[in-house]
């Protein structure tokens, strides 16, 4: 996700003596990636003080609130697919037009009211892409694997046996003839 940085737009229209405007800009990769799963820029909203006022984003992601009284305010951004931290905005009463902003989530001060999403949100569980390992890990794959081990690895083990021992074993087996149930039982060796 790429970010476009716009110049800071904390310009303040002094509307009356005590009320100021708060303008800001939202930055995100909306235009780049926004159209698929995630929301569009036109669906994003900026909310002042928990619903006291709602505004929308203009082209380029600009927003503004007019007639904001001096004091401390909270700006929240709602954009489907992105997580924005709420922003604490202090509108100064002493220095007209001075606005200070800080993210409340990580207490980072913003020297410009330029907001960017902290992260993208993935609402859906992502399907595992196809991989050989997933095939192998499946019960079917495990069964096939076990079979292969028996078919190819076991004969190898037999091959590596000492030929002398092998001959003895074979002799023993022929000497016994058809193996009976008794000979397979433990203790049959003794007689």
């Amino acid at each position, binding site marked *: 996700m790429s970010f476009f940085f716009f110049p800071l737009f904390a310009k303040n*229209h002094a*509307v*009356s003596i005590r009320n100021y*405007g708060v303008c800001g800009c939202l930055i995100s990769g909306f235009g780049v990636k926004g159209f698929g*799963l995630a929301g*569009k*820029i*036109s*669906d994003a*909203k900026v*909310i002042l*003080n*928990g*619903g*006291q*006022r*709602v*505004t*929308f*984003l*203009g*082209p380029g992601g600009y927003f*503004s609130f*007019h*007639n904001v009284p001096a*004091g*401390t*305010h*909270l700006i*929240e951004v*709602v954009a*489907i697919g992105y*997580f924005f*931290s*709420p922003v*604490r905005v202090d509108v100064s009463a002493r220095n007209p037009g001075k606005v200070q902003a800080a993210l*409340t*989530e990580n207490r980072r001060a913003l020297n410009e009211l330029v907001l960017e999403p902290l992260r993208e*949100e*993935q*609402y*859906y*569980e*992502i*399907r*595992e892409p196809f991989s050989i390992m997933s095939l192998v*890990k*499946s019960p079917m794959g*495990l069964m096939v694997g*076990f079979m292969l*081990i028996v078919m190819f690895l076991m004969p190898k083990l037999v091959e590596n046996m000492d030929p002398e021992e092998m001959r003895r074993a074979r002799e023993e087996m022929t000497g016994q003839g058809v193996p009976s149930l008794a000979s397979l039982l433990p203790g049959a060796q003794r007689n």
Partner: protein
Amino acid sequence: MAMAIRVFLLLILFMSSSIPGFSLFEDQVGLMDWHQQYIGKVKHAVFHTQKAGRKRVVVSTEENVVASLDLRRGEIFWRHVLGSNDVIDEIDIALGKYVIALSSEGSILRAWNLPDGQMIWESFLPGSKPSKSLLSVPASVKVEKDNVILVYGGGCLHAISSIDGEILWKKELTTEGMDAQLLFRPHGSDVIHAVGLHGLTQFGAYLLNAKNGELLKHDSTAFPGGFSGEISFVTSDTFVALDATRSTLVTISIRGGKISFQQTHVSDLVQDFSGMAVILPTKLTGIFAVRMNRLIVFIKVTDDGRLEVVDKKDHVAAVSDALPVSEGQQVFGLIQNEGGKIHLTAKICNDMRANLLEESIEMDHHQRGLVHKVFINNYIRTDRSHGFRALIVMEDHSLLLLQQGEIVWNREDGLASIIDVSTSELPVEKDGVSVAKVEHNLFEWLKGHLLKLKGTLMLANPDDLAAIQRIRLKSSEKSKMTRDHNGFRKLLIVLTRAGKLFALHTGDGRVVWSLLLHSLRKSAACEDPTPLNVYQWQVPHHHALDENPSVLVLGKCGYSPDALGVLSIVDTYAGKELNYLGPLHSIAQVIPLPFTDSTEQRLHLLIDVNKRAHLYPRTPEAKDIFLRELANVYWYSVEADNDILRGHAVKSNCILEVADDYCFDTRDLWSIVFPSDSEKIIATVTRKLNEVVHTQAKVITEQDVMYKYISKNLLFVATVAPKATGAIGSVTPEESWLVVYLIDTVTGRILHRVTHHGSQGPVHAVFSENWVVYHYFNSRSHRYEMSVIEIYDQSRADNKDVWKLVLGKHNLTSPVSSYSRPEVITKSQSYFFTHSVKTIAVTSTAKGITSKHLLIGTIGDQVLALDKRFLDPRRTVNPSQAEKEEGMIPLTDSLPIIPQTCILQVFDDKNKFNSPQSYLPLSIGHAWGVLNQEGMSFVLDLA
């Protein structure tokens, strides 16, 4: 070797099972979930049909929504919900591509791009004093000349460039106290006319230069009789108003810079008229419409200023604005209601005799009520004659498009304003339902199978595929009309502001039936019916299984607290109003009692403003039950204005002039008076009455047990400093505090009190079992916080001793009473929470076994599901091994926001989550169909 294989196998098994099966995959959207979008009752509509391509209608609604709708199907292209105090005044289309919306009493003007709903510009228009707000957008599409939007608001006239929203000039008109009522600009001229009233006696007219706002001329003349308020446009130099008595029409004409008045008695025009006349706010040319009692009279103003009645219409429901059809010809639409039909007529303003269009449409007025508004639009037929389509807004807030005598589409936009919700069980499946009943007929059945065959052979086009999907959904288990084994499928009974009751199926959200309630329709006895609540009236089970379930719908006539109440009882299977009563006594409070009669009808106590209790149902049996339980009926009331809580109980029968056995006098048991100068009640919450608690004990680590203090009578009250009742940031942390109480409502005893310094509202809280979770704003850290209080019963703590249990020295069988002084301990903890919250609810299940989740509706119109374990006051930073085994989550300072557990949806802020169906994905909303499985399990558990 074998060992190694076994280990490997186990490892693989572990790996494959460690993938969390948490939420929904993207391609599963729409299989288990559904969403619906609504906009609300339409206030204004502007058609956009000139160009080829998509035909649209742009609407603004009473729910502060601006939306662009597809004119062919009625679907929403885009939709914006403005802030709750940003009421839309007017909308229009400028330059053929921008939707212009004026809102907040003419102080905010926004332009949205018509195709995609992107905001293009926003202008703030500072005014000096409140006034009417008017919007005038030039009709021509030519950019080079007529690109100026005129806005009158806040006593000032603004000219705004429609390209970038820049304010070109501003002119204050209120210097002499005039409030402009009409704003117009004769075609092709550079002069703006503004006419209005100074007070109610003086008529004023301004002429302004459109280029720079220079005042060219200003006339004003006093009218001795005084005006009633509104002025209606007839021609650019003739206006009509009513005098203060509303019995005389005043024709105002401006000739040669002189204003002259001419008075005509209404009774001279219409014989035997008495009462009040009202000029309809329609913008017709040459004529105007006056409503007199039930009659609408169209009156023409002749050149010499005389009035002439041209037409009288009865049963008129609505009149549209004038629509310019061709050069010099204007047409308006008229809707008349008659019996089960509505008649749509299109007439030419200049020639009232001829009707361009006459259509009748069958419309059941019991279902949709009367027509409230009509908007018309024209199109050119293939034979070059004019055709008309009409958009009508009905009494139930639904929106319909009529064309060629048929309803092309309809939208149930009443569902945008849901007042209350209840649930109803579906009927039990009867054995032996024949196939013929399921498949409507053989042809349908064959067609379905043919479609499916096409689908498998990959011959189906997209339309067919959609049809197959529909059939599949229809036949799927979840949308059946019968009760399932676990009781997951239900009907949602939704009461809307229009007084209409809808039954929605939880499986797919379709409307099973809808009913405009008789008791909540406007009548002579009940002028302004407002719906209040829905309660479950009869929930049949056991011996009364054959009865249909029913709900009780309450409303009142008017908005004042002592307005008379009305009530209806509605069968939820048939969708029929069984009974309605009203207007009765006022309704201040409704108490569903935990008693039912032999037919499973629940007893309800309605408290009126005189503190009398009225018992329903009004049957001797119900009265007997009630009298038997009289000593155990308690309730409380909150006087938020005076910051007083009161507890009440029933005393005796009322002493009235007319004896009423079902009316009872009440007495006050206790009261808690909060100090008004330091505490103001902002929130009260209790437990849901129907909540089931599975276990009273909570097993904690080391095989220890804590006993939950579970009482139906616990009340959570939050108070704040009086200064801190305003919005966030309106008060310094030093001046704000939040005090939280847990109060027993039988005795009025305060069980717990905690103060959060530096905190303020709004407070949203939810109470369940023995805990309460509340959300508030901490102005010190300038973040939202959520706190949890759990309350435990200490008097039973001794019962842990096995020997005592064995020897029978326990107090487990002693009754839990509010009168015994409880020894309770509380545990609490607070966490930061990122978002503003509109509402909080908790999941509830039939037996209360499933672990609880909080459902949090955030300001961003999303619903988050948060495990209650995150709000466990025993969380510590480093949980011990035993605590970890118990599933305790290490303490963090803030609560996590996990997008996968987000049941994304939008809902109206007035909607509360209501008990068993904590999830409410309809209403004004665009719900992203992202119900994850966890969400799904809630729905399964509860809905």
